[in-house]
């Protein structure tokens, strides 16, 4: 028991991301409303982004903006600066997420114009008639 609690406390950040991911995943597969599915997808994406940013953390590390002249003269110690690569990847992933949300909302507007509802089972009934 002690070891399990110690494990949870040492890696609580991963537990937060997994719980967020489970909320988003349940909304995506368990809900009937298409807008709720889209919101679930956004929550899922947020958990992935948080996870990636957290992999770049170094304890006691500074932000990845250095003093230019000092760095040119003496070089940079990589252990004192957090990993910039996940930040770059997630910067682009956030923008892609906004684009995906925009396109999905546009398609949902078309679906609502066509069928008059956003409930999945009602749309399925109307398409099979």
């Amino acid at each position, binding site marked *: 028991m002690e070891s399990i609690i110690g494990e949870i406390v040492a890696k609580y950040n991963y537990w937060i991301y997994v719980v967020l991911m489970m909320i988003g995943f349940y909304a995506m597969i368990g809900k009937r409303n298409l807008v709720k599915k889209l919101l679930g997808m956004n929550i899922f994406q947020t958990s992935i982004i948080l996870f990636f940013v957290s992999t770049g953390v170094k304890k006691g590390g500074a932000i990845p903006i250095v003093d230019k002249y000092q760095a040119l003269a003496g070089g940079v110690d990589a252990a004192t600066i957090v990993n910039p690569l996940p930040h770059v990847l997630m910067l682009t992933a956030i923008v892609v997420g906004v684009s995906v949300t925009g396109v999905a909302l546009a398609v949902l*507007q078309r679906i609502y114009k066509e069928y008059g509802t956003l409930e999945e089972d009602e749309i399925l009934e109307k398409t099979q008639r």
Partner: protein
Amino acid sequence: MRDIHEHSAGEDLVIKTSVRLLVPFIQLFGLYVIVHGHYSPGGGFQGGVILGASFILLALAYDLKTSQDYMPIWANALLGNLGPVIYIGVGALCAIFGGLFLDYSALDVLIPLGPVEWRSFGIFLVEVGVGLAVMSIMLLLYWNLSSGGALDEGL
């Protein structure tokens, strides 16, 4: 340009006045974030979103027509096309002047700044392109989604 009070009647005076006063500063801050991306947190994506948000704020406080007075539809489409063209054009220029695609140090033959300084300046050019594209696409998404594609009334 039409008068700003012409379109929307019956909205809250406090919101309208404060938005009208805030928007120039938000746009200035967006430009600062784009051009200061080399030395502080910022860059094309973030600054572009801030610039787009200033116009979205106008559309929220007044209506779509007011934001289209400040940023006409044709100008928005032009800027949105210009962004990717700047980015890909800079990359193609590098290839034309003897380097690899997107290797900015090859542009040294145009203006002799030195290859390392050109890599810094090339990043700046590219960020401007990204900022323009993000700004106009954000605004386009809001206009289209809030008015159902009609681009006239909206929320």
